[in-house]
């Protein structure tokens, strides 16, 4: 169990037993955990994520924000960054994956593999710092701070989020690219590809027309997995680039024990994960209808 509660966390050194007790009573933290959980779950089913604990502590005036209002603008930022990274990373890794499958074991294949595996092996903050060093510090091409706000216009937003998007791209490309390559190479050994080869189809034709349609299912699963990661797991990149995303909000909420916000974030993360995986499964079935019929 997480030690401490909101009162103790927010008052810190100034916490007195009576003020902490007052906080507990006001926030309902004195009730048993299961009652609080069912209260929250009942609200969540009806679309009410509750109110944040913070902002209640002044002269009885309740200025606390709805959890939804706290999460919404940051979730939009996170989705923006995730989409930007995905728009670069997904086509790039598909193309690289297909090309490396096409020219497998060539010098090109090896160097792409080495490069992408190198970037995935480093921790994200390291990749981020390296990019900052070369593109913000030594050559001031991009800003090192991605501090966007709701008034930032679209172009400026893209410019400001360029470095975090590149960082995320470097971190996820290897996984998707290698999966694409492996799925295609795996199929190249199957009899129907041999057949296609014998009937005189070119290498490109074989891969794009015959192998790829059957490889979509595993590729879609890996892409979904990485997209989910882009939404739920980019706290480190947010901190390094000072990007106001939902990860930072959740970390702050955990630190101050603002449980309604933590629960709201967790719910959204879980939903994102499940939805993306569902979409991947649907893509798998649509591209390969045989999966609908058990053998």
């Amino acid at each position: 169990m997480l030690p401490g509660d909101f009162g103790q966390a927010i008052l810190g050194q100034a916490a007195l037993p009576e003020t902490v007790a007052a906080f507990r009573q006001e926030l309902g933290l004195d009730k048993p955990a299961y009652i609080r959980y069912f209260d929250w779950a009942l609200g969540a089913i009806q679309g009410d994520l509750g109110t944040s604990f913070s902002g209640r502590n002044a002269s009885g005036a309740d200025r606390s924000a709805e959890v939804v209002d706290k999460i919404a603008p940051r979730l939009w930022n996170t989705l923006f960054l995730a989409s930007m990274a995905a728009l670069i990373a997904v086509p790039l890794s598909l193309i690289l994956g297909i090309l490396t499958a096409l020219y497998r074991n060539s010098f090109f294949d090896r160097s792409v593999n080495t490069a992408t595996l190198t970037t995935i092996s480093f921790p994200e903050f390291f990749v981020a710092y390296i990019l900052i060093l070369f593109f913000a510090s030594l050559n001031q091409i991009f800003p090192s701070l991605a501090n966007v706000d709701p008034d930032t216009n679209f172009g400026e937003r893209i410019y400001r989020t360029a470095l975090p998007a590149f960082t995320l791209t470097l971190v996820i490309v290897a996984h998707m690219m290698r999966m694409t390559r492996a799925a295609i190479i795996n199929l190249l050994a199957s009899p129907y590809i041999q057949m296609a080869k014998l009937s005189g189809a070119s290498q490109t034709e074989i891969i794009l027309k015959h192998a790829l349609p059957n490889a979509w299912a595993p590729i879609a699963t890996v892409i979904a997995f990485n997209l989910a990661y882009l939404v739920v797991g980019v706290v480190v990149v947010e901190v390094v680039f000072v990007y106001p995303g939902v990860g930072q909000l959740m970390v702050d909420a955990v630190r101050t024990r603002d449980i309604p916000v933590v629960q709201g974030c967790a719910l959204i993360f879980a939903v994102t994960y499940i939805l993306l995986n569902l979409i991947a499964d649907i893509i798998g079935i649509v591209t390969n209808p045989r999966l609908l019929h058990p053998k």
Partner: protein
Amino acid sequence: MKDKFIKAQQEKLTLGAIDRRQFMTSAIAAGIAIPTALSLASDAIAATPKKGGKFRMGLGHGSTTDTLDSGTSENHFTLVNGYTFGNHLTEINNEGKLVGELAETFESDDGKTWVFNLRKGVEFHNGKTMTSEDVLASYEHHMGEKSTSAAKGSLSPVRSIKADGKYKVIMELDSPDTDFPYIVSDYHISIRPAGDMTSGVGTGGYIVQSFEPGVKSVLKRNPNYWKEGAAHFDEVELLSIVDPNARQTALISGEIDAMDRVDLKTINLMKRNPNINIMQATGTAHYTFPMRLNVDPFGDYDLRMALKWAVDRQELVDKILLGYGAVGNDIPIGTANYFHNSDLPQREFDADKAAFHYKKSGHSGKIQLSAADAAFAGAVDAAQLMANSAKKAGIDIEVIREPNDGYWSNVWNNDAKGWCACYWGGRPAETMMFSAAYVAESKWNDTMWKTTDSAVKFNQLVKDARKELDESKKRDILYECQRLIYDDGGLLCPLFNSYVSANSKKIAHGKIAANWDSDGAKCVERWWFA
């Protein structure tokens, strides 16, 4: 070489690290003629503020739970932001002196009844003229029955507060306190228009345009600001950049003009950058290891003394603060305080004295010391260093690493732990610091130093000091108070940490205040673009 030296000395002079006389001495020693040296000195001091520009500052604090209500201001971001858009009855100026702010003057005949004469013609950002009604409402916000303002405790001695006309406020205290005007300069007690304590409307030099908790605060200059020679920038952007590397990169690449809390590990790399100034101010903030007298074995005078002699303070300054700080002398009053007792000999590591007192105490076995980095950065390492030096005196200290979560509730100021690491920001007035943690009735009395003869005497002396209007008598009393803590108290205070910040060379400023980081947290209204 000479130019470089003189330039460095000039910078020190502007920062207030040396005075005019020291500057002159060093300039003449460097072979510069007196008239030239004099003009160099005035150049450095008389750099006249210029108006204009957009000031962007990166701060190492800020959380999504921040608000514009000064009552719950709890980190350096909200502090700087609060001082930028709000004013208080009094303020501590960059010389460390208490002066009137929204109260033009303040006076008391007996230290018990305080009269604050408000400045006339001051306007809030919403156009309303500031009167005693607003001051009363603001104080009610912090003192009211239901208030959970962090200033409630420090305002508890106020028995009544009333207005006498539109521009006079009278506060009556329970008992005399000649340092009370210091309390009203507290960053929590900002003056806001009656009926609106939370939306960020103040009387300050800048008007809040937008505020996103944990992200940034955007402000623009208040064209009707009453204070002269302050608020020079046109626009201000305060950014919360918690990651030290991101903050430093932003400063180096010119995305911000100033930052607080430089990472000491990489400070030498920052120093090499020709466009950046590093600033250091040692104020009242200090790291302590309070021993609780009501927990065995710390009730024993000799054992406390043994531990006080067993710490290598200079080693802690060198290794924990990397030289950015000063040794402490087991008193919670630093050299930045006006009545700092400098007569007390500086305690140093002395294995013989420590062993002598340890033997006399008759204690044997391990002494447990609890620490977590929640107390201060490097607290666990500091405790380890203390255990190592104590070993040389034959004292066995066992360092217990505590979790950061709930540290202030479960470890610090808790009878379950007799000795732990702690941090204090310090107070501008000596009696305020004593009231916070050393008088018997304080709830934060973390040493429980209450019942020994010296402690009883100390409590009486603090009361006397609060009554005393005569400065030299007050000095004698406060010196004695410090001597009592130094000798008998449960306080082991080995370090005074410096505030280390950095800014672009484009920024100019006068002498830097040391009462808070960032020029007393008032850099936004005090600094300008050169």
